[in-house]
């Protein structure tokens, strides 16, 4: 028979854990809203950039910028792995790290080396433990990604790419499909593919559905996207219509300046997406932890009551037995 006091102590301990997990759940819920807003805020910029890029790219016939050149064979890949700084978010980080690890192992088998850029403490710790060298690492920024961080990553990978040290750049991050679901995603960000121009818009339109309050913004942004698409389409079908743009200094130079910004924007988006996903994952993990704690408390309370009742019954039996024995004498 378990000791009454031990059970009571366990109930208390589960109770206080439950308080913590419930608070974390509520905090994460509040943060999802903020993270989603940031994605919505960043959307017009990304869409405008896609629009401008689409307009120029369809005009200039041959890909002149080195960022557009696809290299074959690929000998070295730079990997940007985006995780969170904090744990307690369920499988959020391990999913990404496992996917990245599998990718590295597969590429190694083909004789392709990988350089790693780690964003978030969890990624840093993971790769350090495995003694894989890090090209760059960022900590304490996962919850609130800044464009400057994206710029630093973009500049580094573009340098590496242009100098020929790496032949491809891939980003691994959690795409926040909706509040509850995060999908481990990998995107090739260099070389920039022409088809990709539209993708960012579509991707964000789905992300925006994260929140009820964001629906208006989603409608607005999809309208914008349609506009961006139709104008891009117009250019391809009738390049004369918009072909008379004056470029300063020149179309090629504008494109050359725009592509790094585009890469930067995509990285920034991945960071924002991951930040929203982190909060979603944490809320889900903390919700199930709270639910589990509730279950555990009710089970333990039952055990406690049964033990207490058992003790009382035993006492009564003893007293009754004792009294009966006295009477018999």
């Amino acid at each position, binding site marked *: 028979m378990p000791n009454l006091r031990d059970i009571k102590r366990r109930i208390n301990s589960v109770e206080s854990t439950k308080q913590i997990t419930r608070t974390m759940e509520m905090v994460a819920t509040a943060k999802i809203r903020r993270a989603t807003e940031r994605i919505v805020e960043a959307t017009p910029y990304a869409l405008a950039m896609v629009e401008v890029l689409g307009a*120029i790219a369809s005009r200039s016939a041959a890909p002149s910028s080195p960022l557009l050149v696809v290299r074959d064979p690929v000998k070295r890949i730079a990997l940007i792995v985006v995780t969170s700084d904090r744990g307690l978010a369920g499988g959020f980080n391990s999913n990404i790290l496992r996917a990245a690890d599998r990718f590295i192992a597969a590429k190694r088998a083909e004789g392709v080396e990988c350089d790693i850029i780690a964003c978030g403490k969890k990624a840093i710790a993971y790769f350090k433990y495995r003694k894989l060298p890090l090209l760059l690492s960022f900590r304490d920024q996962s919850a609130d990604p800044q464009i400057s961080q994206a710029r630093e990553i973009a500049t580094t990978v573009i340098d590496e790419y242009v100098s020929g040290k790496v032949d491809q750049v891939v980003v691994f991050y959690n795409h926040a499909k909706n509040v509850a679901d995060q999908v481990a995603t990998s995107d090739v960000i260099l070389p920039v593919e022409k088809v990709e121009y539209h993708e960012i818009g579509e991707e964000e339109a789905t992300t925006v559905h994260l929140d009820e309050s964001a629906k208006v913004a989603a409608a607005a942004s999809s309208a914008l996207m349609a506009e961006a698409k139709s104008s891009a389409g117009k250019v391809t079908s009738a390049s004369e219509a918009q072909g008379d*743009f004056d470029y300063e200094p020149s179309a090629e130079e504008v494109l050359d300046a725009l592509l790094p*910004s585009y890469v930067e924007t995509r990285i920034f988006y991945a960071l924002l997406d991951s930040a929203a996903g982190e909060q979603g994952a944490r809320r889900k993990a903390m919700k199930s932890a709270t639910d589990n704690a509730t279950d555990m408390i009710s089970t333990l309370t039952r055990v406690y009551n049964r033990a207490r009742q058992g003790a009382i019954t035993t006492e009564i039996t003893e007293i009754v037995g004792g009294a009966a024995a006295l009477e018999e004498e």
Partner: protein
Amino acid sequence: MSEPLACEIVTPSGRLFSGEAEYVSAPAAEGDIGFLHQCAPFMSTLKRGAVRIKETMAGEDADVFAVNGGYVEADGRKVVVLASHAINVAEVDVEIAQERIAANEQRLAELSEDDSRAVFIRDEIEWQNYLVTLVGQPA
């Protein structure tokens, strides 16, 4: 008043300005350029500088935004300014800017000579310095 020009200033952290104006000027790569309704389609990179928006041609600048590089696209009806960093000059706080300069100079001093991050920090310092001088000027 002639026909208005739609103008938008967008940054990664949000849409800063969206409205109509009669005249917009921007610091293009080869010098400042002004846009009016029905201007020729134009696209350029931007230098660090000020985007000025006038509601009426004769009037004062209605809004002045400082941009730290970026792009401008105009098609005669609409002017879109894309900037990685931009701020309404009226909202610049000189004290905060100076604090940032000091903080960044300290960071710069702590870095080694060939650290790749130094470039960004220097850029940030120059940008904040620019904001301070812009606010210092009479409008």
